[in-house]
Structure formats: structure tokens, C-alpha cells
């Protein structure tokens, strides 16, 4: 759930609860104040009635007005307690009944030895009307407040979070091997400024680590070349010795083969770092179909030996790119398609303006699409003849060229598809 939604949910719930509770309190208090006011007035009336009785020694006339009524009831011996009540009186017109709420005060009074219960009533309707108006205004304000809060949250908060979102976008685009650093927009919010600072430091450190790792690979591979050259040359000289026995020669063959693998691995590692370091930046117009055909001819001998059936559907495609890299790209894919094929198997090459697809039969089951491009990934059933870097190199070339490469497996065919429409 979005932070804003989460915040809004809590915020609106709390706001509504608080406003509701405060409204109820408000209502109760206003009502209490107004009713007390009414009661005061009734007390004043009581005093007036008592004063009148004391002065004239008789009861005043009962009155029956809309807003104030005074009634006297003979009470006999009963002395009524002084008490305030709210009563509903039904007023009857010839047309309709109307209920009206009154505040009533009853007390006893003695006139000439006779006891009377006096009931003074004042209309409570106005009070109720006032409370109603106040309630309406209050709820109006509550609704308005909620609306305002909602919009403030929506727009103000998303504006406040803008720097965070910017940083997030930058982080999503962050690429270790890219030359440029993350570009974070300065912000006046302390928290986000801090976040940006941390992100900056972390990405720079990651880049540095990556850079030094890359340099290490590069240097290590370079440093390995001279010893490899020495071993190679010593072997070349050694085998000239005519006194070597067959047994010794066989041992030397083993050394040669291992040396070849090591040199090969070394070359591949160097190639990978070189591609990563963008050392192949010459761009030229390449006829991709020509390149594919050329490679197919180069591999003819190898594929013929395995009796592979090659089906090629190649349309003329011209691209702008690095010739050497494209050469390696196609070479590696075809080499794999042949190397991991079964005798009498098939290879299909399809090239058009949108994509290059190379699919082949193989003795291998489906490969792990997640891992297939990783360095030194080999399926358990492969013999140790590849160096495990071929597809990493392919992937790296595609990444640098902005192509998307994907692997899929169906109908017992391994398929590598390169989308030639550039992503970047």
C-alpha cells in the first residue's frame, strides 16, 4: 500500500473520530448551557410569582402564551418538590397536532392557607433550533475540514515526497558499469538530503569497488599473459628435443592442452573487461546478414563433421555497431549451437530487421534462463571443454550495444533471441 494511502487511512479515521467526539461534547455542553439559561429564567418567574402572592395575597392570573405558560393546580396536602423537567405538550389546531417541547418548573406555594402547585413552562423549541443550527454548522465544518485535509495530503504530501521519488528513479536507473554517477536533485528537506547523501556515498563506493574489481581482473589477466607466453615458448622449444620418449611427449601434450585452456580463459576474461571498459567504441555500418553468412561458412567444417542440418532464413539487415564485437557475438552463439549439438542435429538461424534467432537441438536439457548468461555457468552435463564465458561475453556485447537477449527452450530446442531494436 502506498505511504500516502496508508497515512490517509489513519489520518481520516483519527480526524473523523476526534471531530465526532468533540461534536458530541460540544452538543452536550451547549445544550447544558442553554437549558441552564432556561432554568434561570424559570427561577426568575418563580420569584415573580412568589413576590406577587406575597404582595397581593392571591395568585396571579395563569397565562398561556406561546413561549411561556403558568398554571396553578390545587394540591391539597401534598407539597410538590421543586423540580425541573422537560415535557412535550401537544398543541391542537383544527387542522393538525403539533408537539412542542417545553421546560417546566414545578413548585408549591400557599395562598390563604391553600396549597397550590405552580407549573411554569417555557418553550424549549428555540433552544433546540439553536442547537440544530449549531450542529449543522459544525458538521459542515467537519466535512469541509475533511475535504481540505484530504486534498492537502494528496497534493502537499506528494510534493513533499517528490525528492524521494526522484532519488528512487535515479536508483532504478543506476548501472554499475555505466560511466556516469547518479544525479540526485538537491532538496531542502533534511531527511531526504540525508538519504541522498547516503545514496551518493553508497553508489560511489559500489562503483569504486566494481571499478577496482574490474581493474583487478584486467591486471590479473594481463599479468598472466607473460608467464603463459613463457610456458608456451618453453614447451615449443622442449618438443624439438629428439631424445624425448613417447611417454614424455604425451605428458607434454597434456601440458599443452591445459595451457590452451588457460590462455583461452585468459583471453575471454580480457575480452570481457575490454567490452566493459568500452574499448570497442568504433562504430561502423555492418551488414549483419553478410556477417552471419561469413560465420556460417567459417563453421561449415565443424558443422559438417557433426552432420548438422543448418536452416538459414536471412534477410538483409544493416546495423551500426562494432564489427569485431558483432563478429564475436555471432561466432560465440554459433559455436555453442554446434558444440552442444547432437550428431545429425539441427540449427536454425533466422535474421530479420527485428531480431536474430539462433536455435539448436542439443544433448542438454533446458538451461536455467536466469543463470545461463552468468560467468562460469555450465550445465552439469557439459563436458569441461568450454570456458564458461562465451555467453557472458555475448550478454555483455548485447548490453553494451543496447540489444535485449533472451533464452528459451521449447520442443527440445534451445533458442537465443536477440532483439535488434535498441533499448537505449
Amino acid at each position: 500500500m502506498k505511504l500516502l494511502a496508508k497515512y490517509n487511512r489513519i489520518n481520516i479515521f483519527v480526524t473523523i473520530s476526534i471531530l465526532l467526539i468533540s461534536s458530541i461534547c460540544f452538543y452536550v455542553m451547549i445544550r447544558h448551557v442553554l437549558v441552564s439559561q432556561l432554568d434561570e429564567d424559570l427561577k426568575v418567574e418563580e420569584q415573580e410569582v412568589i413576590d406577587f402572592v406575597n404582595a397581593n395575597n392571591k395568585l396571579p392570573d395563569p397565562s398561556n402564551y406561546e413561549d411561556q405558560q403558568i398554571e396553578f393546580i390545587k394540591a391539597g396536602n401534598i407539597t410538590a418538590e421543586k423540580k425541573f423537567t422537560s415535557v412535550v405538550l401537544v398543541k391542537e389546531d383544527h387542522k393538525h397536532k403539533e408537539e412542542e417541547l417545553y421546560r417546566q418548573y414545578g413548585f408549591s406555594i400557599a395562598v390563604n392557607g391553600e396549597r397550590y402547585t405552580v407549573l411554569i413552562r417555557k418553550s424549549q423549541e428555540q433552544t433546540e433550533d439553536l442547537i440544530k443550527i449549531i450542529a449543522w454548522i459544525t458538521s459542515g465544518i467537519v466535512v469541509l475540514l475533511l475535504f481540505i485535509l484530504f486534498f492537502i495530503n494528496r497534493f502537499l504530501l506528494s510534493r513533499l515526497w517528490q525528492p524521494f521519488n526522484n532519488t528512487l528513479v535515479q536508483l532504478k536507473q543506476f548501472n554499475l558499469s555505466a560511466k556516469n554517477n547518479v544525479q540526485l536533485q538537491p532538496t531542502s528537506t533534511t531527511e531526504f538530503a540525508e538519504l541522498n547523501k547516503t545514496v551518493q556515498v553508497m553508489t560511489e563506493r559500489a562503483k569504486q569497488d566494481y571499478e577496482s574489481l574490474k581493474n583487478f581482473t584486467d591486471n590479473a589477466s594481463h599479468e598472466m599473459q607473460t608467464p603463459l607466453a613463457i610456458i608456451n615458448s618453453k614447451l615449443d622449444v622442449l618438443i624439438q628435443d629428439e631424445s624425448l620418449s613417447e611417454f614424455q611427449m604425451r605428458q607434454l601434450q597434456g601440458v599443452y592442452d591445459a595451457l590452451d585452456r588457460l590462455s583461452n580463459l585468459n583471453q575471454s576474461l580480457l575480452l570481457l573487461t575490454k567490452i566493459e571498459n568500452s574499448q570497442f567504441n568504433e562504430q561502423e555500418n555492418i551488414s549483419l546478414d553478410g556477417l552471419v553468412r561469413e560465420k556460417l561458412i567459417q563453421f561449415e567444417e565443424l558443422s559438417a563433421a557433426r552432420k548438422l542440418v543448418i536452416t538459414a532464413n536471412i534477410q538483409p539487415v544493416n546495423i551500426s555497431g562494432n564489427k569485431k564485437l558483432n563478429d564475436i557475438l555471432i561466432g560465440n552463439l554459433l559455436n555453442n549451437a554446434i558444440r552442444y549439438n547432437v550428431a545429425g542435429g539441427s540449427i536454425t538461424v533466422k535474421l530479420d530487421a527485428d531480431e536474430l534467432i539462433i536455435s539448436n537441438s542439443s544433448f542438454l536439457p533446458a538451461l536455467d534462463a536466469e543463470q545461463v548468461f552468468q560467468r562460469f555457468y555450465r550445465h552439469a552435463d557439459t563436458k569441461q571443454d568450454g570456458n564458461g564465458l562465451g555467453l557472458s561475453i555475448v550478454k555483455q556485447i548485447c548490453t553494451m550495444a543496447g540489444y535485449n537477449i533472451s533464452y528459451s527452450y521449447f520442443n527440445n530446442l534451445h533458442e537465443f533471441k536477440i532483439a535488434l531494436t535498441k533499448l537505449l
Partner: protein
Amino acid sequence: MKILIVEDEKALAESIDDYLKGEDYLCETAGDYNTALEKTELYNYDCILLDIGLPGGSGLKILKELKANNKTDGVLIISAKNSLDDRVEGLVLGADDYLPKPFHLSELSARIAAIIRRKNFSGSNLVKFNEIEIDTVAKTAVIEKKPFMLTRKEYELLLYFISNKGRVISKNAIAEHLWGDDMEGNNDFIYTHIKNLRKKMIESGGIDYIKSVYGMGYKFTDQ
């Protein structure tokens, strides 16, 4: 034929020296920039094997000096820095060839022979071995003056053998020469090509000079 080996790795220079001596080359070595510069200024060589990373300075600077002094020595750059820039720069500066380390000495020897052939103008595009003659410009071969039809790979193989005559060449070196880095683990193909080459040499009235050496490699020899 005089060769100067400019290489700071003693062990490597030694091996190159050992290998080339057998080819009737006269080899000198220089282990650093100053020695190399001095030697190139004083003497003329048929071919200079030039390492780029040298103590005291870059081999490319020596190449520049050579060209500035209008020297015609052949130059073969042997570098551990198999970077495209070095290669391009070296060739632009006038180097005749570029061989990245590690390399097989048989490959080195064949490259040197090619450079010297190109440098010597007097009918030097002909490579001879007894009754076999190869025209390296037309890329054709004759045996006893009779044309000798070869496939591209067989031609390359024959030339490679003759450039390293009397030497044991490992199958690994042959594979790398014929196919480069593109295809690994295809030593079986070498056998097929060699079988065909032998057959053609005999059919054309020549002698099969290719001796197998314990399954490790081959030797082209008339002894």
C-alpha cells in the same frame, strides 16, 4: 638473416632465441628500451621483434625512431597488451605485423618468414623446399614444376610447415594457426587436413615429408 629480439622477459627472449637459431637466423636480444634503441640505431636487422611494455620506455617509441630514420627493418610487435589501440597504433606507425602474447614459436617463426619475404624484393615471394615451390603472392604451389591443387587450409598448412621445416609443431599450434581462437578442441580436423595434404603431395609425384611425432604434433622434414 639478422633478428633483434626486444623483450624484457629473459626467459621468453631465450626461448625465442633458441627456436630461431635453428632456422639459420642470427639473433640478438635487447632487454630494455635504451639497449634496443642503441642497437636499432647502430645496426640493420631483417626483422625486429618488438615488445611494447619495456623498462625505460615504450616499444612504440622505438618504432617511431626507426621510421623517422627511414630504416627498412621489418617490425613484428609482440605484446602482452592485446589491446586494439596498441595494435592499430603499431600498424599505423608502420609495424609489419602484430602478434599478441601468448603465442606459439612456430607461429612467430612463420610470421617472421613472411615479413622477411615481403621485405626482400628479389623474387622473394617464392618459398622453396626441395621439389615444392610456393608462390606466396598468388597463393599457389607447384611440385616438380607441376601445379599442385590445394584447398585454402591445405595451402596454409603447407606454408606453415615449410616456414617451420625440421621443427616439431604441436597440434595446438597448428589448430590456432588454421582456425584462430574461433574453434577450440578440433584437433581431429587437423588430422583430416594433413591426411589430404599427404595424399596430394604423393599423387603429384612428391615425397611425403610430414612426420607424425607421437601424436603430439608433426614435423616437416626430408631427413
